[in-house]
């Protein structure tokens, strides 16, 4: 019913002098099911969006949040959590909802710009102040006596990114040029590089003393409980941890190569339908507005890498270090394939993980 919105707009523009705006406005409630480290971002963004949307349409939108491990959140939506939008850690968790419930269209990644990923991040290392174990790059993580904290890739989105980032780093070290991956001429090199990556990751997990179920749990273990020498973390989570828990306690170490993490967003059409047209428009606008300059600025302030850095505060942008980043599509052929190969039951993680 676009007429409703038009009516609201007319009310806002023409009749506001005569009639109270609220008479036309609708009260909309949305539920955003998100993953662990976005708590602070969406807390800020929800306020920004509500104000902006009320100014635009007169409708007042309240966005409720649900946070948890990305896989767990996806499972909740599949089981019937009435989320109107999902903002998860990785594409596969949204694919899973699309596959199992049909509540999200198959081609959801085309609904918003930049494969529906309004912000990106990467995987970096968080170490204790002064870097007492001299951890500089991926190779240092598997040295004797180093304890690495990373969550369980079976349940945590961030952990799957960590796993793949390590994998990419070894491929890069072995091959030099990742272009060789698709070149049949180097098939043997690629095979031995993949074997090296497998070996490295298997060794890496032998250095993991605690396997939390979510990224937040892992950060807590490292930061608050004092376990481990290095935390593999989302860049945003690493920044946040140093800010919230004392810059005098931790240092961020940036590896030479890492993965470009693209946490995507989608409207859960199957759930929003029941709420009516104005709610659907609000949900769509909620995700679309993430791409607006003011939201991008907020995103950078919350330590996520904006896709439109020109909109952000240059000081915020300056905090992001330069490193070589590769995408999952480029190295692993997309999330569906990566999930099936590495993380499903019986996949690579299951075969190499020998605690």
């Amino acid at each position, binding site marked *: 019913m676009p007429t409703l919105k038009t009516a609201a707009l007319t009310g806002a523009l023409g009749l506001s002098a005569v009639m109270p705006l609220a008479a036309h406005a609708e009260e909309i409630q949305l539920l955003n099911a998100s993953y662990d480290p976005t708590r602070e971002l969406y807390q800020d963004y929800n306020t920004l969006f509500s104000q902006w949307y009320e100014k635009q349409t007169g409708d007042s939108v309240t966005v409720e949040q649900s946070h948890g*491990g990305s896989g767990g959140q996806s*499972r909740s939506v599949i089981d019937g959590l009435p989320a109107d939008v999902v903002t998860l850690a990785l594409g596969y968790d949204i694919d899973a909802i699309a596959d199992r419930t049909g509540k999200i269209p198959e081609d959801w990644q085309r609904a918003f710009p930049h494969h529906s990923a309004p912000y990106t991040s990467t995987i970096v290392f968080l170490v204790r102040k002064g870097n007492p174990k001299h951890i500089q790059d991926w190779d240092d993580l598997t040295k004797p006596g180093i304890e690495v904290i990373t969550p369980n890739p079976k349940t945590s989105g961030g952990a799957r990114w960590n796993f793949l980032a390590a994998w990419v780093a070894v491929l890069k070290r072995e091959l030099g040029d990742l272009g060789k991956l698709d070149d049949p001429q180097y098939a043997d090199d690629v095979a031995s590089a993949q074997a090296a990556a497998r070996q490295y990751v298997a060794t890496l997990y032998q250095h993991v003393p*605690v396997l939390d*179920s979510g990224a937040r749990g892992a950060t807590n273990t490292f930061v608050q409980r004092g376990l481990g020498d290095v935390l593999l973390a989302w860049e945003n989570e690493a920044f946040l941890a140093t800010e919230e828990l004392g810059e005098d306690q931790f240092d961020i170490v940036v590896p030479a190569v890492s993965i470009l993490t693209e946490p995507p967003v989608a409207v859960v059409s199957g759930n929003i339908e029941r709420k009516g047209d104005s709610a659907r428009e609000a949900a769509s606008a909620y995700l679309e507005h993430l791409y607006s300059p003011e939201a991008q600025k907020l995103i950078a302030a919350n330590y996520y890498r904006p896709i439109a850095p020109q909109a952000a505060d240059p000081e915020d942008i300056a905090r992001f270090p330069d490193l070589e980043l590769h995408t999952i599509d480029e190295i692993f052929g997309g999330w569906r394939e990566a999930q099936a190969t590495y993380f499903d*039951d019986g996949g690579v993680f299951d075969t190499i993980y020998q605690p």
Partner: protein
Amino acid sequence: MSQRQSMLPGFGLSLGVTVLAISLLVMIPLLALVTRSAELGLGGIWQTLADRRVMAAFRVSFSTAFAAALLNLFMGLVVAWVLVRYPLPCKRLWDSLIDLPFALPTAVAGIVLTTLYAPNGWLGRWFAEFGLQVAFTPLGITIALIFIGLPFVVRTVEPILQDLDRQQEEASTSLGASRWQTFRRVLLPPLVPALLTGFSLAFARGLGEYGSVIFIAGNMPMKSEIVPLLIVTKLEQYNYPGATVIALASLVVAFVMLLVVNGLQQWTRKRTGRE
């Protein structure tokens, strides 16, 4: 008995309400568990349970619950003994405090025990001096289960201790038996059923405990992952059959434990002539 049945009113109503509630809340849900597991067939159920990680989780759950219940057996006996036999300042206060683990929500127990026993916590720091890590290891799970299970032993042993005949003890001592002999020959036998009941209750509770354990466990597959957590993990991986089968297996264990406890309690009643 049949006379009583005809005389008192409300049998149909009360039984109806009870059976209805039990059916809706216990029978149907558990039936769902059974039928969902049955869909896998015996082979599938076996395959799920024989998985290394599942077996390891059962091993962790059983061994930590057993260790905690065993420690509680001794500590609970000491506490009950002191509360019943010795003069203590503020005895009533101590006695009410025993039930704290029943009344304190498990999530609160979880975060506070983790804070205490983490390597940088009040107690964990002290343990760390000796190179002993408590939180995030099976030892941490055991600590949480000791907290949860302590009242079970104290509360089952206390009444038996109160009812014990002092004269027998005095007779035994006056006949020249040593304190240890008196304890073993006179005191212990009537306590055994109650101790076993308390032990089984604490053990059963320990097997199922979730809230207080997940914070302190470290949740390492094969090492410190407990069965209830594995159920949740399977669930979060969309592995419903897996979660259901493991849940069914632990349900069967719980049911057996319950039968054991009921049997023990009947034994206790016979031994002590109660009821």
